[in-house]
C-alpha cells in the first residue's frame, strides 16, 4: 500500500450526522475499515494532510470535529509508537483495535445480508416449488472405446515369449506342499488304537476330528473293513453310531498287519 487514498467523504460528517461515531477510536476504526489498511501501514502524516484538506473544504469548521480529530491523531500516534517500540508482547491496544475493527466489519456484513433477506424470500416464493426426478438406471455398456496400435499386441506377445524363455530364478528352489494321503490301513490302526484305549468310539467324533474330506472317506472305509474282518461291532443309536471292539474275534482271516500292529507297539497293555 504505497499511496493510500483515504476517502473521507461519508466518514467525517457534519455534526448532525455524527451519531454513528462514539469517540476517536470509532473514527479510526471507520477510517481503517473503509480503506482496508493494515495498522502497520498507517501513515499518520498522510491521513493528517488529507484530513486537513477535507476540513478546509468544509464551509463551517465544526469545533467538535476538530477536537475529535486531535484526539484521533494522538490516539494513532500512541498506537503507532507502541507498535514500533513493543517487543511483541504488549500489544493489547492493537489487539483491541483489531478486534474492534473485526466487530465493526462483522456488523456491517450482517446488516448488508439482512437487507437482501426479504428479496431472497420473494425470489424463492416466486420460483415456486419444483420437483426433480430420481435418476434412471442405465445398464452399463462396457464396450472398449480406447484405441491401440496393432504393434502393441505383437509387443505383448513377445513379452510372453521372453518370459517363457527366461530360466526360473536361481537360488530359490520351488517347494510344493506335500499332498496328505490317508491310507485305510493307517486309519484302521488308529481306530483300533482308540478302541483299545477308550473301549469305544463314537462315529460322529471320529468324523468331526477328521481334517479333510479324504480323511473322512478313509475313516469310513477303514470302519467298513474292520467290520468285514470282524474286529469291531457297532451299535446304532438315534443319531450316532458307537463302535466297540468285537467281543470275540470271529474265525475269519485277519487282514495282514492290522490287528497285530494296532495292539502291539505303542500300546503297552493290549488286549492280548
Amino acid at each position, binding site marked *: 500500500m504505497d499511496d493510500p487514498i483515504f476517502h473521507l467523504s461519508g466518514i467525517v460528517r457534519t455534526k448532525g450526522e455524527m451519531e454513528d461515531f462514539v469517540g476517536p477510536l470509532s473514527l479510526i476504526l471507520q477510517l481503517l475499515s473503509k480503506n482496508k489498511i493494515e495498522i502497520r501501514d498507517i501513515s499518520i502524516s498522510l491521513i493528517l494532510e488529507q484530513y486537513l484538506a477535507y476540513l478546509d473544504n468544509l464551509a463551517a469548521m465544526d469545533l467538535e470535529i476538530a477536537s475529535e480529530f486531535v484526539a484521533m491523531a494522538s490516539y494513532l500516534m500512541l498506537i503507532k509508537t507502541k507498535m514500533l517500540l513493543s517487543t511483541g508482547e504488549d500489544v493489547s491496544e492493537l489487539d483491541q483495535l483489531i478486534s474492534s475493527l473485526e466487530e465493526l466489519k462483522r456488523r456491517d456484513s450482517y446488516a448488508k445480508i439482512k437487507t437482501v433477506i426479504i428479496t431472497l424470500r420473494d425470489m*424463492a416464493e416466486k420460483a415456486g416449488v419444483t*420437483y*426433480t426426478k430420481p435418476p434412471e438406471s442405465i445398464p452399463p455398456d462396457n464396450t472398449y472405446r480406447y484405441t491401440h496400435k496393432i504393434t502393441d499386441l505383437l509387443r505383448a506377445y513377445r513379452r510372453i515369449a521372453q518370459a517363457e524363455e527366461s530360466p526360473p530364478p536361481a537360488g530359490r528352489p520351488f517347494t510344493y506342499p506335500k499332498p496328505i494321503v490317508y491310507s485305510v490301513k493307517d486309519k484302521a490302526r488308529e481306530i483300533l488304537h482308540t478302541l483299545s484305549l477308550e473301549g469305544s468310539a463314537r462315529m460322529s467324533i471320529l468324523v468331526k476330528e477328521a481334517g479333510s474330506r479324504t480323511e473322512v472317506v478313509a475313516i469310513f472305509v477303514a470302519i467298513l473293513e474292520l467290520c468285514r474282518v470282524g474286529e469291531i461291532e457297532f451299535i446304532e443309536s438315534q443319531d450316532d453310531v458307537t463302535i466297540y471292539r468285537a467281543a470275540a474275534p470271529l474265525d475269519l482271516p485277519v487282514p495282514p498287519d492290522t490287528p497285530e500292529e494296532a495292539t502291539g507297539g505303542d500300546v503297552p497293555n493290549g488286549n492280548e
Partner: protein
Amino acid sequence: MEMNDIECVLEGILFASGEPVPADRIALTLGVPKTDVYQAAHALAHRLEMEKRGIRLVVLGDTLQLCSAPEYADYIRQALEVRKQPQLSQQALEVLAIVAYHQPVTKLVVDQIRGVDSSYTVGLLQDRGLIEACGRLNVPGRPLLYRTTPTFLRAFGIASLEEMPPLPESENGEGDSPEDWVQVKMETPL
C-alpha cells in the same frame, strides 16, 4: 448435429439424469460446441414454458436440469404423497445468504457474522441440498468450506449467482467484501 436433434437428445439426457448435468459434458458427448448446447437448452426451455408443459428446463450455473413445472406442484405433491417442505426460516435464509454472497466460506465466518452458532442451520441447508462442502481452507484445523449448489439456484429461480440481488454498497464501496476481511484476519500475525 441439427439444433433440433440436440434439443431432443439433451432432453433425453437430462431426463435420464434427473440431476443437474454439466453443459460441457453434454457438448462433449454430442460432439458439438458448448454454445450450441446452451442454445438448444434455451430453445427447449422456452418451448416447454410456452406450451405450458409439465416439465421445465433450468440453467443452473454451468449445469442444466429438468424439473417439474412449479404451477403443478400441488397436484404432484398430492399424487405422489410427498410432504410439503417447510419454507426456509429467517435463520436459514440468513445463513444461506451469507454462504451465497461469501462463498466459499467456513462455518466460523458464518458464525462470526451472525454472532451465533449456526451448526444446526448449516446441517439443515446441507440436508436440503442448498449448500455443500467444497474443500477445506488451508489454515490450522483445515475447516470445511461451503458453497451453494445448483439446487440453490433452482430454489431461487435464478440461472447463476450473478443474478443474486446486489448487496448494498458500503459507504465507501469497493473492497469491503468479507473475504478480504477474513483474509486480513488470517494474515495478521498476532
